[in-house]
């Protein structure tokens, strides 16, 4: 089994293609064993529908509409979630004042707020952004609160004994120290945001991927429904990867375990595989990495770790 990054990408691609192949097989053969695939569009049907959509202008309008909604809602949630989370974690007064309200509102599914949004906001657009915001707000808030409370007290004490005040502690200790936890919340938040933006569009939207998907369903255009679903899947994957990568970039200082998946086997196995003519490319690449690791332990290692981790 190759452990090279390219090999891992290839493996992921194979997994994806296998899933598609299975889909095609089941639908093309109209398999009906309790689960009924006969009504299902095949991969080729969906692909044709997709190609048709891509050339039209509606698809791109839907895409930009949905992205605008989710990004505005999510960014608002990120900023306010972190702000309120820090406030609640650091101030007893804020905790007493905001805590009960937040705890009561939190269990309400964001999508159940559709009536509220319709009553509250003059336009549908703002309502959808509001729902997206609410969905992401609570995961961000809760993880920020926990992360801030879990900070090592010594860091704050150190800054205080240097003469640092409230704002200095916030900027130099609380925010950077809580960042790993905050990004945990952001990752969850972006996922929930997608669920809610699509649902909200299905219920009350004009344009948007969710709206289009539901429209296609009502006119029994099943390949169209699947085009919508694939689009949602890809968009969700891209945005959560972006959040993940940003998080890793900003929390690079985190001490990681020295174990890198594949890292150990690479250095251990290499000398033995040297005479094997097969994986020449892999070997050469791995070898040079190994040497650079040995030469400049510090930075070399981090780069390798970082690269492996970037395979989301």
């Amino acid at each position, binding site marked *: 089994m190759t452990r090279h990054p390219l090999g891992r990408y290839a493996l992921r691609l194979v997994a994806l293609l296998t899933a598609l192949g299975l889909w095609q097989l089941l639908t093309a053969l109209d398999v009906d064993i309790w689960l009924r695939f006969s009504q299902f569009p095949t991969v080729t049907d969906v692909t044709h529908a997709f190609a048709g959509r891509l050339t039209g202008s509606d698809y791109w309008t839907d895409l930009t509409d949905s992205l605008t909604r989710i990004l505005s809602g999510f960014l608002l949630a990120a900023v306010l979630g972190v702000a309120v989370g820090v406030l609640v974690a650091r101030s007893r007064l804020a905790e007493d004042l905001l805590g009960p309200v937040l705890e009561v509102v939190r269990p309400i599914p964001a999508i159940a707020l559709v009536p509220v949004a319709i009553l509250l906001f003059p336009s549908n657009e703002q309502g959808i952004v509001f729902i997206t915001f609410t969905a992401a707000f609570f995961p961000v808030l809760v993880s920020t609160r926990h992360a801030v409370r879990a900070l*090592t007290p*010594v*860091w704050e*004490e*150190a*800054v*205080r*004994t*240097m*003469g*640092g005040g409230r704002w*200095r502690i916030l900027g*130099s*200790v609380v925010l*950077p*120290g809580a*960042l790993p936890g905050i990004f945990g919340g952001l990752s969850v938040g972006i996922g929930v945001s997608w669920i809610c933006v699509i649902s909200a569009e299905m219920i009350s939207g004009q344009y948007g991927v969710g709206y289009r998907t539901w429209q296609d369903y009502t006119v029994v255009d099943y390949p169209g429904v699947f085009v919508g679903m694939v689009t949602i899947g890809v968009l969700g994957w891209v945005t959560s990867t972006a959040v993940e990568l940003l998080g890793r970039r900003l*929390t690079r*200082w*985190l*001490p990681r375990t020295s174990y890198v998946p594949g890292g150990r086997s690479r250095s251990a196995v290499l000398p033995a595989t040297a005479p094997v003519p097969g994986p020449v490319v892999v070997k050469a690449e791995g070898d040079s990495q190994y040497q650079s690791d040995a030469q400049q332990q*510090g930075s070399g290692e981090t780069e390798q770790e970082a690269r492996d981790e970037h395979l989301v």
Partner: protein
Amino acid sequence: MSTSSETTAPAAAVPAPTSAPRLTGATAPGARLRFDAAVLGRPGAPVLHDVTLDVRPGEILTVVGPSGCGKSTLLRTLAGLLAPLAGSVEQDGRPLTGPSADRALVFQEDALLPWRTLRGNVELPLAIQGVPRSGRREQAGSWLARVGLDAQAKQLPHRVSGGQRQRAQLARALAGSPRAVLMDEPFGALDAQTRSGMQDLLVEVLRGTGATVVFVTHDVDEALFLGDRVALLAAGRVASVRDVPRPRDRGALDDPARVALRRAVLSSLGT
């Protein structure tokens, strides 16, 4: 005052270095710290009672005692992180109201901010004091050089050894040119060899700063090597404060007066 050979060049770049030897009073910028009939501890949980102690400007006072006897409490009170439960704690005649850049605290370990490089950590007190960026960089660099970390300046704390982290903490504490340095078992987690090297480094680096030092340790030999005076804590009180003969002199180990003091300290600690 063991080695006088290395009054290092980077010292010139250090803010306002007074070359006055320790304990020469008048010009020394060290703070005078005083406890007067103080009760120390967390609210509702006093640990030390009836503490009356005068730390002279520019001296090194070491504090020894068994673990859990309140050494850290004493230090945290001096740092301003804890308020005295009764009595008074003063710096230069004024009661302490809270933490201040005047009194730097060096922790036992892992008090460096892990997301900042060693240099970033040393720059922090300077940034808090409003030193402009270029000055910060230069001063932090020279402090790191003084503690022998110029090569590691760009490393993150978890990438260097425990001893190097403590050296960086020392540099960070001194970079803010405090008038008192409070050290809470700073070498407690280090192996014996690193520890004695760190003690020498501390003596070397403190020279010329004139800062008052309160150094907490559970290691009697460390206390006797570093301290001008040693305070003994036992049974929730300051049991006694003794003058140390020939402090910071490695050759004084066999000095009869030192041996006698060591024996007295050990027996009063009940070991």
